[in-house]
């Protein structure tokens, strides 16, 4: 387990094993990998079509995920190149449960938020370490194993940082497009 720099030493990411990519890179590779997305949405087809995000076909979900991942990557690339001091503007405190307003805003015809999530611990202003991320299709994180896993990773990372003498940190934050 180690921490690698993503850009400007302000955005960093955990890497959980020597033979694994860091979490930040893993996410952008998976979210643009058609086979991974096909398998993921096939496995979670019930959540996808539960109505929380409306009724979306497998194929639309796959393409939408790639499009959103690309937009998110572009946004981060712009920050990496020009304004790394703006990280605070894109991360927000983690909500364990999505607000009901998500459904309400959909009813009003507004574009719902993305299901892509990047989770990170804020160490100080504009300094973050990514602990993981996922595709969140349900209202709460505890509902599904793959989202619960992200909470367990956060606890593990927090303990690791404490061992390094890095304490006084904020809770988990999330980046949503």
């Amino acid at each position: 387990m180690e921490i690698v720099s993503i850009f400007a030493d302000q955005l960093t990411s955990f890497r959980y094993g020597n033979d694994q990519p860091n979490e930040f890179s893993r996410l952008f590779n998976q979210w643009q990998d058609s086979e991974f997305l096909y398998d993921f949405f096939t496995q979670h087809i019930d959540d996808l079509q539960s109505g929380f995000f409306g009724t979306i076909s497998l194929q639309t979900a796959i393409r939408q995920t790639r499009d959103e991942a690309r937009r998110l990557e572009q946004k981060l690339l712009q920050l990496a190149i020009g304004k790394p001091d703006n990280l605070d503007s894109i991360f927000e405190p983690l909500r364990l449960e999505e607000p009901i307003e998500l459904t309400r805003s959909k009813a009003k015809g507004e574009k719902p938020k993305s299901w892509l999530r990047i989770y990170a611990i804020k160490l100080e202003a504009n300094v973050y370490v990514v602990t993981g991320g996922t595709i969140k299709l349900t209202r709460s994180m505890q509902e599904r194993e793959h989202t619960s896993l992200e909470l367990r990773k956060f606890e593990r990372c927090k303990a690791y940082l404490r061992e390094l003498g890095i304490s006084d940190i904020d809770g988990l934050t999330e980046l949503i497009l």
Partner: protein
Amino acid sequence: MSNLEKLNKVLSTQKSTWEEEAKWREANEEWLSQSFNIAVRVLDTLKAKKMTQKDLSEKMKVTPQFINKVVKGQENLSLETIGKLSRALGIKLIDVVGHETSPEAEYDFEQAYEVSQIYRKQIFGHASSKGYVGLEACQVYVKEQKLEYKMPA
């Protein structure tokens, strides 16, 4: 010592290559996007025809590793390879703008799935909402009813 200073002391000497990869993806977006769409179509067809990637590789006389690259949407496919894929799967994978397609080509699996989302209740009543249930029936229904369905953008 600040958290940032403490962090810098323990940072791995190996920096992430994400920035270079992201720039590469941006520069190659045109063909990556096409490759991704073809990959989804191939995966759909493999599933519908109950074929494995290995089956496809044998039919095309290529390695399973190559097919795996194709279905990940990361392979810069030549027209020749797309042609071989089309023939092996019995589907049309690319279309040129302005080219007239046969009525059959318009009712492909993907389109039929989208249609099934809309007409499922009318057609099947209590049928399961999962996956590809009744795709063929949907295609027949759409043809019989002469429905025109435009794929969402």
